[in-house]
């Protein structure tokens, strides 16, 4: 009887938790969709200049915290990591890219990009096996098209959800309301890597594997952009605004799957100064 009550209690707690997440997600999404449901183009919706700054005080505080963490943790580790031999860095980078396929593939499908989903599935299978757990990008050597990451935020954007307000998440960094909400999809079964490491107790992986992969991904990104980030920081009159602009430009480009810069550059501002 006691066991039954306990199991029942656990199921109910789990259900309430899930329900709360779905409710928050839905409310936030409705807000986002309403914020930009006027039929504007995807380009316009995700234009960095159009994205609102609703919580600047919080964002700047969070940004300062992240800068502190970067100074103490990520920057020192990245400065050592970038001196590693190229084959090691490429292997790590390839492996992380390969792992990200487990989120990219469902998003390819959700966006109706079935051919891309097929290609990425092939890429994932080949690289995970012949490519020794993704360390070697055999698929690219075989002529597979260039890999492009997709996530649930990009999918929501293609469904017409606007970005909502800009937000800087502690530890995780810059985001938007839409992209933050979409993160929850990863924890609700949308990320197979999370499912087999953290969510389900498999005998092959542990929580550590998931968090270690995320931390490595952060270090890899920091190392690749080491000089650029230092340069922007040194030469900015408002570093927070620079990072915001760079992040939002990058997101816009990813959402549009822009191949050339002309796709995301608005020439009207340049034409204006002619007058």
């Amino acid at each position, binding site marked *: 009887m006691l066991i039954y009550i306990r199991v029942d209690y656990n199921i109910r707690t789990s259900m309430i938790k899930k329900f709360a997440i779905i409710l928050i997600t839905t409310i936030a999404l409705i807000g986002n969709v309403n914020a930009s449901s006027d039929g504007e183009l995807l380009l316009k919706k995700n234009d960095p200049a159009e994205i609102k700054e609703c919580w600047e005080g919080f964002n700047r505080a969070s940004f300062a915290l992240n800068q502190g963490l970067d100074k103490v943790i990520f920057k020192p580790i990245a400065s050592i990591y970038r001196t590693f031999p190229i084959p090691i860095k490429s292997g790590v980078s390839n492996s992380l890219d390969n792992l990200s396929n487990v989120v990219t593939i469902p998003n390819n499908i959700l966006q109706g990009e079935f051919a891309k989903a097929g290609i990425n599935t092939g890429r994932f299978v080949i690289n995970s096996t012949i490519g020794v757990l993704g360390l070697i990008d055999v698929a690219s050597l075989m002529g597979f098209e260039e890999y492009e990451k997709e996530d649930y935020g990009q999918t929501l954007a293609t469904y017409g959800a606007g970005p909502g307000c800009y937000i800087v998440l502690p530890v995780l960094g810059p985001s938007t309301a839409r992209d933050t909400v979409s993160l929850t999809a990863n924890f609700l079964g949308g990320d197979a890597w999370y499912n087999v490491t953290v969510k389900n107790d498999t005998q092959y992986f542990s929580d550590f594997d998931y968090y270690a992969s995320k931390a490595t991904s952060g270090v890899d990104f920091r190392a690749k952009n080491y*000089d650029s980030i230092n340069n922007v920081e040194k030469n900015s*009159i408002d570093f927070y605004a620079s990072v915001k602009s760079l992040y939002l430009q990058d997101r816009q480009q990813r959402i549009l799957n822009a191949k050339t810069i002309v796709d995301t*550059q608005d020439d009207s*501002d340049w034409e204006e100064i002619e007058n």
Partner: protein
Amino acid sequence: MKKKLFSVIFTLILLANNVVAIEADIFVQSTVNRASKLLSEDISKEEKIEKLKIIAKDTVDIQGIGFYTLGSARKNLSDIEKVKYSEKFEKYFLKSFSSRLAEYTNPEINVFAKEILNKNYTIVNSTLKATNERPEIKIDWRIYTKNPDQPLIRDLIIEGLSLARTQKEEFASVLSSNDGDINVLFKVLEEFSNN
């Protein structure tokens, strides 16, 4: 006779224009080579910075970038303020530009394509060769070609991210945090240039 003379003159003018006009991609490659040669010279960093400023003045439309960067705030400025802004922006830009580039010792940039957008703009595509410490970087150049004899750089787009746009949003942030007061921006630019 008159007709022939006219044809000869017309052809000569046409030829002269074609000879003088500089292709945007050639302009970028020669500018890059000029900067690259300078950066590999065995001179002090300060000397490099001073020489880079000269290259920037020759090849970059600093005033155009300055007004673009100011965005809609430009419309509210008086003529005196515009002059003041242009002066301060040039100092800021030259310092920022040269100190950014001076960090590189011998950057290898290869120009490989161009796309003519209209008579005023051409986008030139290039790559900065990978080193042991960083991967290859894609750099696109927005070249202002209104005067074909003297093309000028208006923007650098690194991996799809526009530096001019970033700077514009940075300036907008400074202005919006200070009720649009242009004097605050003047002060910030001056502080940056003097540091």
